[in-house]
């Protein structure tokens, strides 16, 4: 009926909008201007579209968009429909501030409101999906208070949320 038609219309325009967004993000990383992105940078494309996948989830996604014979490049042709579906289905939801806080609190065994440098490094580089050294250094450069060698995670979260438009 009419309602169905209108819904379809809206869905189509929504999809069109999403597709434009995906193409834009893709093109920012398409350095050779030939509709391909280095497979190592696809994660950045996916994440800057507002998704928060784990590394494992990202690998699954890559498996869907890679060529039969992996070339090291991802083509827009394959990426577009998959990414559009991801955004439509709202997979890899963002992490709200309070959930993030709980995560840090879970690591804070003594419940003192901060983590020592050693603790943070241990968890981030040995647990979960471990950080590279570069990632660890980057996080510390903003999070660590040099006098005390600790990370007051509540302040850190606040800082990062503000910065992250």
């Amino acid at each position: 009926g009419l309602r169905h038609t209108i819904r379809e219309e809206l869905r189509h325009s929504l999809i069109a909008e999403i597709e434009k967004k995906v193409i834009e993000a893709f093109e920012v990383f398409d350095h050779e201007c030939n509709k391909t992105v280095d497979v190592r940078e696809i994660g950045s494309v996916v994440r800057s579209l507002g998704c928060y996948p784990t590394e494992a989830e990202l690998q699954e996604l890559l498996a869907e968009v890679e060529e039969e014979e992996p070339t090291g490049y991802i083509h827009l042709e394959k990426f577009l429909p998959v990414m559009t579906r991801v955004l439509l289905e709202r997979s890899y939801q963002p992490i709200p501030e309070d959930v993030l806080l709980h995560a840090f609190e879970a690591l804070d065994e003594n419940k003192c409101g901060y983590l020592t440098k050693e603790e943070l490094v241990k968890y981030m580089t040995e647990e979960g999906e471990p950080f590279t050294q570069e990632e660890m250094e980057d996080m510390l450069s903003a999070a660590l208070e040099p006098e005390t060698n600790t990370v007051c995670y509540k302040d850190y979260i606040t800082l990062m949320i503000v910065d992250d438009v």
Partner: protein
Amino acid sequence: KRKREPAPVHFALNNAAVLIQRWYRRYVARLEMRRRCTWRIFQSIEYACEQDQIKLHNFFSYLMDHFTPSSSKERDFISRMFVSGESFKEAELEKYCDYESMEVPDSYTGPHLSFPLLPDHATTLLEAFKRKQQLHARYVLNLLHETRKHLKQLPNISHVSTCYSEEVTVCGDLHGQLDDLFLIFYKNGLPSPSKSYVFNGDFVDRGKQSLEILIVLFTFLLVYPNEVHLNRGNHEDHMVNLRYGFSVHGRKILKMIQNVFCWLPLATLIDQKVLIIHGGISDTTDLDMLEKIQRHKFISVLRGKKRKESNRNVEIQEIIGESKADASAAEHDAASSPSPQPQPAQAPSMTNRLEFSKWVRQMVQEQIERCRQLVDSESEEEELTYSSFVSMTDLNAPCWTRQEEWKQILDILWSDPMPQEGCRENTVRGGGCYFGPDVTKKILEKYSLQFLIRSHECKQEGYEFCHSRKVLTIFSASNYYEIGSNRGAYVKLGPDLVPHFVQYQANKTAHTLTMTQRISRVEESAFRALREKLFAHTSALISAFKAYDKDGTGRITLSNWATAVESVLRLGLPWRMLRPQLAHSMADGMLEYKSWLEDLAMEQQSQEHIQSGLLEVIYRNRSNLETIFRIIDRDHSGLISFEEFHQTWKLFSSHMNIELTDDGINDLVRSIDFNKDGNIDFNEFLEAFQETEFNSDCQKASNWVPSLES
């Protein structure tokens, strides 16, 4: 690698870690996106500026082709516009920029120069500039004179050999950033008999110390002529300088600089294996031609491509001039021209004035053509126009057209490499080509070269390879767009021709900031520039938005917003990515465009301030404006329409780097349409200024064509 089933507590810890890591990686990716977008914003605005300049030029070229000046004043104006880069003869130049008669007062505490220059002069100069002192105009002019004399003896392509000096250091764009030059000298040492340097163009514009950079480079050039080599860049061009504000020095200095820039060599070759040019190459790059052309004839490389014999008209008017009515006098003129000529077809009857004038004009035109061909080789006089006659300078050499020569220079000064194969017009810059890896390969093979070094493009790390490491871009102006935007670099080559890079950043504060802070800061700057640009297109944006808002609700979807903005600004930016930092959307995902534009306007200077600034500018330029009006007013009615005025003003103001609302212009125009008939009687318009308070203040104000009193 399978993990064993973790214990519950550990499970919770593991989950927490994954969550944090997941969140952090997303943050970093977003930062990377922001960084790239910021870069794109700066680049697209920069290149759009260059495009504007060229658009203005094409506009005037077009006018030139179709306009016949009707007064000596107008002829002067046109001459100044296009021939203002005239190449003086040595004696004339000396007379004009007579520095010897300039007195250096006792109160002057700056450095003194005497010629021939010695190494001590160079170091003294550096010290003086570090203390923020200035060099007296007399010494500047003297230096420029000597530099010109020196450059004249140099070939178009400098040859450097690594067997004489162990290493050659190549520096890229400096753009008036003296601190970077200081840093390079500090890290690498001053030029000396054992330390060779090549400076690859774009010494001036944008940065605040362009003149100082020129002084330093020219001084070292004269002190160590065998070790210091300068290549011309696209900014060593007075038409480009006009746009970017280098034209703030005295008229004499500016004139001298014009006559020095055109003598800068075009390229440098190291060991016959490494070619250094400022921009790049094209598939038609011909080093043999480049070596042989008379480079100094190309004072400005920024010209319209095809031009009719418009300057001919100027001469013809002179000859025909007042004696239009006197047919016999005109005939006499035609007959008494220097060279004999084949008999023209039967002259039309003198009773048909129009026909006769036309015929005479034609004859005279041919005469001038012939004279020019003969005179061309000897004369070093005013710059020649770009009609495509054959260069008669060397009868034994291949004959190239002026057009071909011009293209060679344009290509090496303005081209950019691209990843795709092929060679196409560089429409973004408006000059030169985009050249692909196949073009690089072809040219390298043709001349048995190993690789190219070029500059012209800002790179985040100060340098970048492309085309399988066959093309190296080196850029020496750090923090070019904004503090923290990029590093500068220089490259050293030894006899093995293996490049070694040194990077630096001239501002200390950049180091103490975190990655986030650095990116934020540069980003702020980029967005500020972008918002200014958006503001300047307010009227066009409103029209574009309204097309998506037929019901006049004042709101549009974010998607339509992005499409509309791109259609107006044409910067090729990822607007959907940028939108969150430019405009807030309502809860329903729509954007209230009217209030958004109002917010933008508030951020810029107040309307009032702009208005008075505009009036001031108009007043200062009224004689030029008058001329422009006459050019536009084809039917000589004394009236021009709003639209015509608007078009003219837009081009004019983009050249002047004034960003104004279309509304501002419209308001102004309406206020001077005294009889409200939609036309501007520009006589009335100009008279209106007689009564303004700007009268006395602006008496001494300068014109925008370089003619500032020193």
